[in-house]
């Protein structure tokens, strides 16, 4: 066969295009994004949480959910914001929803304290940057899990998470835990930690500890892929907010305001 240099280059170019076509197809497919996610509904589980802020604010300085979570998981109380470890915590509405332009929404909620958690994103940036797969998204139910055995403490995930959901152990946390719960391991100096949606309790058929602890029933947990679940019902009947939706992380904690 008579292959000139020109012809060879053309063929090589074509080949390269073919190799990358899959990637580009994905980029363009994002336009039709809503369709793809909706069609995926119905396969497997997708855990999510709905926070009814109106109910949560009934008792404004309530810490029931935080306490329950932190006792269950041996989260230390370090006592200064620089080193603190948190799985659930509260921030002013204004900071939680800093992208909300609606001044009238802000007017009455502005400095109300809103509970925040790991958002268990559908498209989690922390997972992308983790060099050891110490954090990953479980295909079967969407939980963004932590494997503390693999965490090397590089803290890329802390930088990647736009919600501040991850804490780093700058020191041995044990002296800062009042009563160690032997049912769950503590962590050690040099690892990152965050909420796991109570993966262990779910395996035992229980609700997450925070949901169980909330007397106002402001936290509702369930399967988004189940049309009849309470979370789906709430999202159908109410207008809901998600944190920083513009970033494309697809958070799975929904707020009713």
């Amino acid at each position, binding site marked *: 066969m008579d292959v000139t240099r020109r012809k060879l280059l053309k063929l090589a170019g074509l080949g390269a295009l073919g190799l990358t076509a899959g990637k580009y197809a994905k980029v363009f497919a994002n336009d039709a994004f809503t369709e793809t996610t909706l069609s995926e509904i119905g396969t497997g589980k997708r855990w999510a949480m709905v926070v009814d802020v109106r109910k949560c604010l009934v008792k404004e300085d309530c810490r029931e959910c935080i306490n329950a979570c932190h006792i269950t998981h041996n989260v230390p109380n370090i006592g200064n914001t620089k080193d603190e470890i948190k799985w659930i915590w509260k921030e002013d509405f204004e900071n939680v929803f800093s992208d909300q332009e609606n001044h009238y929404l802000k007017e009455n909620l502005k400095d109300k304290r809103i509970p925040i958690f790991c958002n268990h994103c559908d498209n989690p940036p922390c997972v992308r940057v983790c060099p050891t797969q110490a954090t990953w998204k479980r295909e079967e139910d969407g939980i963004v899990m932590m494997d503390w055995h693999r965490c090397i403490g590089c803290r890329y995930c802390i930088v990647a998470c736009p919600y501040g959901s991850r804490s780093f152990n700058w020191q041995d946390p044990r002296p800062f835990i009042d009563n160690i719960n032997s049912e769950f391991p503590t962590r050690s100096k040099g690892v990152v930690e965050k909420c796991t949606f109570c993966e*262990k309790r779910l395996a035992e058929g229980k609700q997450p500890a925070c949901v169980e602890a909330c007397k106002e029933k402001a936290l509702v947990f369930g399967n988004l892929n189940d049309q009849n679940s309470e979370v789906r019902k709430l999202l159908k009947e109410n207008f809901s907010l998600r944190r920083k939706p513009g970033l494309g992380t697809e958070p799975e904690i929904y707020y009713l305001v």
Partner: protein
Amino acid sequence: MYDSGKIIIGIIIFIALFTFPTWYLFTSGEAAPMPDLVYPENEDQKECVYSAEYMRASHMDLLNEWRDIVVREGKRTFTTTAGKKFEMSMTNTCLGCHSNKAQFCDQCHNYLEVNPYCWDCHVDPSQLENQ
């Protein structure tokens, strides 16, 4: 060769001193004391999750396996060959029977100079009571 006598004596003294620990142990007949392991007492705790031989040789591999199954696959129940069911947990299962960690796991590990870092995070309930 100059001073060969002195040199040879020097070499002999050096070898004697250098090998002292070895022949001292041989002649005195004392080895480090064998670990004195404390086994579970209760009637329903008389059998380990595998045979004692297997456990002695491979418990570290078994624990790694349990760790990966629990954390990465989200499964938590282990069934022994005899059909008994256990939660795959170091604290709740292993130490549930071997509750005297100091006289069991630690004794053996100290003897062998093994130092698992697992207990930085995993809890030994008997230590909590002493707090």
